[in-house]
C-alpha cells in the first residue's frame, strides 16, 4: 500500500519535472539544465531544513526561487545558443553543479545530504498529536503517505493549471510565436530574449521545487541523483508524452515512471527495454503520444468546439 502511494508520489514529482522541461521547450529551447536546477532546489531545501531548521513549506519554495534566480543570468548568457549547442551548454551547467556538490563540505561531498527531514515522517508525527487513529482504516504511516501523495498531486495540478492559463494568455502566445518562428516573432514586436529567459526561469523554478520535494521525500540526496541521466530522463518524459501540450509531459512521466517501477525486478534488462521503447517512440511517433490536434478532436466530439468571437462576412474572397 505505502509502496504504491510512494510510486504515485514520485509520478507526480516526475510530472512536475516533465512540465519544467516542457516550459522551456514551449519557447523552442532544448535544455538539459533542469537536472542542475533540481539539484539546486534539492540541496537548498535540504540544507535550509537541516542547518536552519526551516519548515518544509518554506524550504521547497525557497529551493525553487534560488533555482529561478540562478536561471536568469544563466539563461541570458546561454539562450542565444540554439538547438544542440544550448543543450550542451546547459548540460555543462548540470554537470558542473554535480561536480561542485561532490566536492563541497557543506553539501556532504559524494556522500550527499543525510537526515533530511522527511515530509511523511513529519506529517505522521503531527497527525499522532491530533488524531487518535488514522481515518479510512489506514495505518498512521499509510495515511501520512496518502497526504504526501495528495500534496504532491496538488503541486503538480497547480503547476499544470498555471501553465495552461499562461498558455492561453498574451505570454503564452508570445512563447508559441517564438517557438514557431523567432524572426517573425521579433518582427511582430515580441522581446524574444525576455520571453525565452522567462520560460527558462519558470522551468528552473519548477525543477527546483521538484528537487526540494525529492529531498524531503527520501531522507537522503546525493550528487548523482541529478546528473546526466536525470537530465535525459526529464527530456524523455516530454518526448514520449508530447511536446506541444502540457498534458504530454505529465502522461510521459506517469507512463515511464510506472514502467520503470514495473521493470524494477528485471534489473539491467529494464534499461534495455527503456532504451528500446525510446527508439521506437522517436521512430514511430516523434511528436509524442499527445498532440494538440487530438485535444481539438476530442473537444469537437464533446461539442465544445471553438467559438467564433464574431461571425464574419462570409468566408472571405
Amino acid at each position, binding site marked *: 500500500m505505502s509502496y504504491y502511494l510512494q510510486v504515485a508520489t514520485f509520478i507526480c514529482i516526475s510530472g512536475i519535472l516533465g512540465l519544467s522541461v516542457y516550459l522551456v521547450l514551449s519557447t523552442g529551447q532544448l535544455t538539459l539544465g533542469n537536472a542542475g536546477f533540481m539539484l539546486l532546489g534539492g540541496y537548498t531545501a535540504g540544507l535550509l531544513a537541516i542547518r536552519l531548521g526551516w519548515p518544509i513549506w518554506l524550504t521547497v519554495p525557497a529551493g525553487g526561487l534560488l533555482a529561478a534566480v540562478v536561471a536568469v543570468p544563466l539563461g541570458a548568457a546561454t539562450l542565444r545558443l540554439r538547438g544542440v549547442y544550448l543543450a550542451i551548454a546547459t548540460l555543462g551547467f548540470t554537470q558542473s553543479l554535480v561536480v561542485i556538490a561532490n566536492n563541497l563540505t557543506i553539501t556532504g561531498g559524494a556522500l550527499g545530504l543525510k537526515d533530511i527531514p522527511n515530509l511523511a515522517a513529519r506529517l505522521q508525527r503531527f497527525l499522532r498529536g491530533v488524531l487518535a487513529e488514522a481515518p479510512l482504516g489506514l495505518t498512521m504511516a499509510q495515511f501520512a503517505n496518502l497526504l504526501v501523495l495528495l500534496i504532491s498531486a496538488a503541486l503538480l495540478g497547480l503547476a499544470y493549471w498555471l501553465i495552461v492559463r499562461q498558455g492561453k*494568455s498574451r505570454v503564452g502566445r508570445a512563447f508559441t510565436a517564438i517557438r514557431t518562428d523567432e524572426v517573425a516573432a521579433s518582427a511582430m514586436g515580441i522581446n524574444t530574449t525576455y520571453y525565452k529567459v522567462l520560460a527558462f526561469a519558470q522551468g528552473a523554478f519548477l525543477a527546483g521545487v521538484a528537487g526540494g520535494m525529492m529531498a524531503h521525500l527520501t531522507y537522503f540526496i546525493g550528487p548523482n541523483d541529478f546528473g546526466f541521466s536525470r537530465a535525459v530522463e526529464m527530456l524523455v518524459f516530454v518526448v514520449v508524452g508530447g511536446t506541444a501540450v502540457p498534458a504530454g509531459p505529465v502522461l510521459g512521466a506517469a507512463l515511464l515512471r510506472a514502467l520503470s517501477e514495473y521493470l524494477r525486478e528485471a534489473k539491467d534488462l529494464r534499461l534495455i527495454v527503456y532504451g528500446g521503447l525510446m527508439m521506437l517512440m522517436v521512430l514511430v511517433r516523434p511528436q509524442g503520444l499527445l498532440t494538440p490536434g487530438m485535444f481539438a478532436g476530442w473537444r469537437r466530439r464533446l461539442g465544445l468546439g471553438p467559438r467564433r468571437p464574431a461571425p464574419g*462576412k462570409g468566408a472571405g474572397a
Partner: protein
Amino acid sequence: MSALLRVQGLTRRFGGLAAVADVSLAIEPGEIFGLIGPNGAGKTTCFNLITGLLPPSAGSVEFAGRSVVGLAPYRVTEMGMARTFQNIRLFGEMTALENVLVGTHVRLRAGVFGGIIRTPSVRREESAARERAMGLLDLVGLAGAADLPAAGLPYGRQRRLEIARALATEPQLLCLDEPAAGMNESESRELMDLIRKIRERGVTVLLIEHDMHVVMNLCDRVAVLNFGQKIAEGTPAQIQVDPAVIEAYLGRDDGAAD
C-alpha cells in the same frame, strides 16, 4: 512636411559585396512608396536594414524623427513600423485569429500574473484585442477563416493574413515585401484595393513589388534599386520612361542609334 522614414547613405556589405550601397530615401506620411528593382537588387536587404533585422554597415535610418539603427526589431515595431515577409512567415500551427493576436502583443500589457489570474483589466484588454483582431481579419477578407490553422490557408490568403497581423501592431508605416507575389490578376486587384484601404486608415505604405501593374497603379512614388544602388526615383510615370530603369530591366540596346 517632414518625412516619416528618412534613410540616408544606407549600406550593407556582405564580405566584399555591397548588397545595399549608399541608398537614401525619404518617405512622406500618407504615401504609398514602391521599391522596385531586378532580382538581387537588394530590396529585401534594404527592408531588413530598415526594420532592424540586419544591422547596416553604414548609414542612418530615422523613423518619425528618431534613429532606429541598432534597435532590436521588437523596439522598431513598438515605435510604429511593421512588416510582412517575402517568404510568408506566419505562425503555422496557430489559427488565423491567433496570428493576428500575436500582432497585438506589442500594444497589450498583460504579464505573467495578469495572464494567469485574468484580472478584470486583463480580460477587458484581451477581449478588446480579439475584437480588433476580428476587425482586421474582416478588413483583409478572412473573417470566416478566423479559427482555421494559418498553415492550411491557401497562399493568397496567407499573404493577406500576414498583412492583418502586421496591422495589428498598429503601425504608422507598413512595409510589405512582395505582397502580390504568386497572386493571379483578380487577387492582385483585390490586394491593391486593400492597400488603398489601409492608406485611408492613415497608414503609410512602403512596398517591394515585382508586379509592375501593381506598382504603376498603386504607388505615389517609386524608387528603383539595381545592384544595391538607387538608380532612379520619381512618380510611376517618370520611372517608366527613365533610361537607367529601362536599361536595368531590359538591358542596353546596343543596336539602336542615339
